[in-house]
């Protein structure tokens, strides 16, 4: 479903992604781990073209995406994204946040969008917060709204960029719970996270990045119990205390 071929990305002189090859199949949950600065988030952001790479190809549903030719807004509708800092729209309440894009991008009627929005709020367990403003929500609630907002566009895949890193520890669980349900429903997901528990339990495949490269990939069992690379072992020993 998502294919990345020999992707190279530079920030000025800095070579942040080196020859990345990656394939994410339909309904697959791929978890990307690695030290900070290893290029995980940048890789994710290259998939929906929040960042442009200098070399390589991104292929979504067999379509090679050329950012100068393809309508990126169409691609971005297909691939939802959830951010570390939620990025909810503070001047809109919860339901307005969710229906904004379905109404103004997809052109749904407000009523249709409201139906979708309410169903999604129910799914993330926040039906009672429909009219609350983001400033009135906890971090965990904000992130669940952000997930609902992305899902409202009915994407075929979801990208999660450290969705729990900005949360208080006791709020991490509720967000992971929503993500687990999503994974069980067969959503195609790419998740950058430091939650090794989630990776172990939910990942079909774990990708380990270091210094802009994919240094190792495999099943959670393989990566966590029998890592081949020294740098993987080093990283895991630091995060799994």
């Amino acid at each position, binding site marked *: 479903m998502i294919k990345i071929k020999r992707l190279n990305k530079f920030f000025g002189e800095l070579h942040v992604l080196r020859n990345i090859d990656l394939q994410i199949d339909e309904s697959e949950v791929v978890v990307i781990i690695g030290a900070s600065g290893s290029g995980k988030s940048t890789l994710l952001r290259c998939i929906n073209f929040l960042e442009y790479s200098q070399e390589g190809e991104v292929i979504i549903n067999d379509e090679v995406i050329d950012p100068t030719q393809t309508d990126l807004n169409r691609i971005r509708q297909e691939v939802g994204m959830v951010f570390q800092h939620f990025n909810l729209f503070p001047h809109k309440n919860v339901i307005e946040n969710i229906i904004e894009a379905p109404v103004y991008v*997809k052109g749904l009627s407000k009523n249709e969008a409201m139906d979708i929005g309410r169903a999604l709020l129910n799914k993330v367990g926040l039906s009672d917060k429909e009219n609350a403003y983001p400033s009135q929500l906890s971090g965990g609630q904000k992130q669940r709204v952000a997930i609902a907002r992305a899902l409202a566009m009915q994407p075929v895949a979801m990208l999660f960029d450290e969705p729990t890193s900005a949360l208080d520890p006791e709020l991490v669980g509720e967000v992971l719970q929503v993500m687990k349900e999503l994974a069980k429903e067969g959503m195609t997901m790419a998740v950058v996270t430091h939650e090794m528990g989630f990776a172990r339990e939910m990942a079909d495949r774990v990708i380990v990045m270091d210094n802009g490269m994919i240094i190792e990939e495999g099943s959670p069992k393989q990566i966590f119990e029998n890592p081949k690379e020294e740098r993987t072992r080093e990283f895991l020993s630091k995060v799994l205390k």
Partner: protein
Amino acid sequence: MIETVDKIFSILGESLPALIHGLELTIFLTFTSLLIGVLIGIIVAFMKISHVRILNRIADVYLTVVRGLPLIVLIVILYFGITNIVTLSRFWAGVFALAFHNGAYIGEIFRGTIQSIDRGQMEASRSLGMTYFLAMRRIILPQAFKRAIPPLGNQFIIGLKDSSLVFVIGLNELWGTGQSIAARTLMQLETYLIVGLFYLMLVLFFSWLVERIERKMDVEGKREVIRL
């Protein structure tokens, strides 16, 4: 003291209609020029944040000219410059000069508040498939305009007071009217006290209005002041 009060009343008795007329002209000048100034400001703000080099440059030159020239110099240059090319009433020449001046500062206010909106807002909007312009219109600008209200209110008050400078091109607004009354009656201090009082009342009214708008729009940070 009593003499001064007497003189003030005598000026008011004799010249109140002229002063009111001057006051009206000041209000009208201010509002029209600030309205056009806001339009110029929006355009300049977008030119500044645009990725098109030439637009940045044009905006920079404009800002440099306005910042670098005393307003009174700008007014006469524009007045004699414009009236050379097109016939324009003094009023509109004055309006245009003030708008030209205020537009630069208003533009900087808008640019600042647009850029103060967290970039995550644009990223989230784009990630949902919004175009740049839709994201600007629906997500960024509403937040930026709200943040612009306090500095904008401040600039409006400055603009109101600066409007007194168009007397140099012969407009009889409040200050200009005061000058002719002072010259005729030779009661300079008293006349200017009245004029000053009129400006003060206008500014107070305006501040009150801005305050109300801020409260109504629930501008961030208006309710809570952090004390350390």
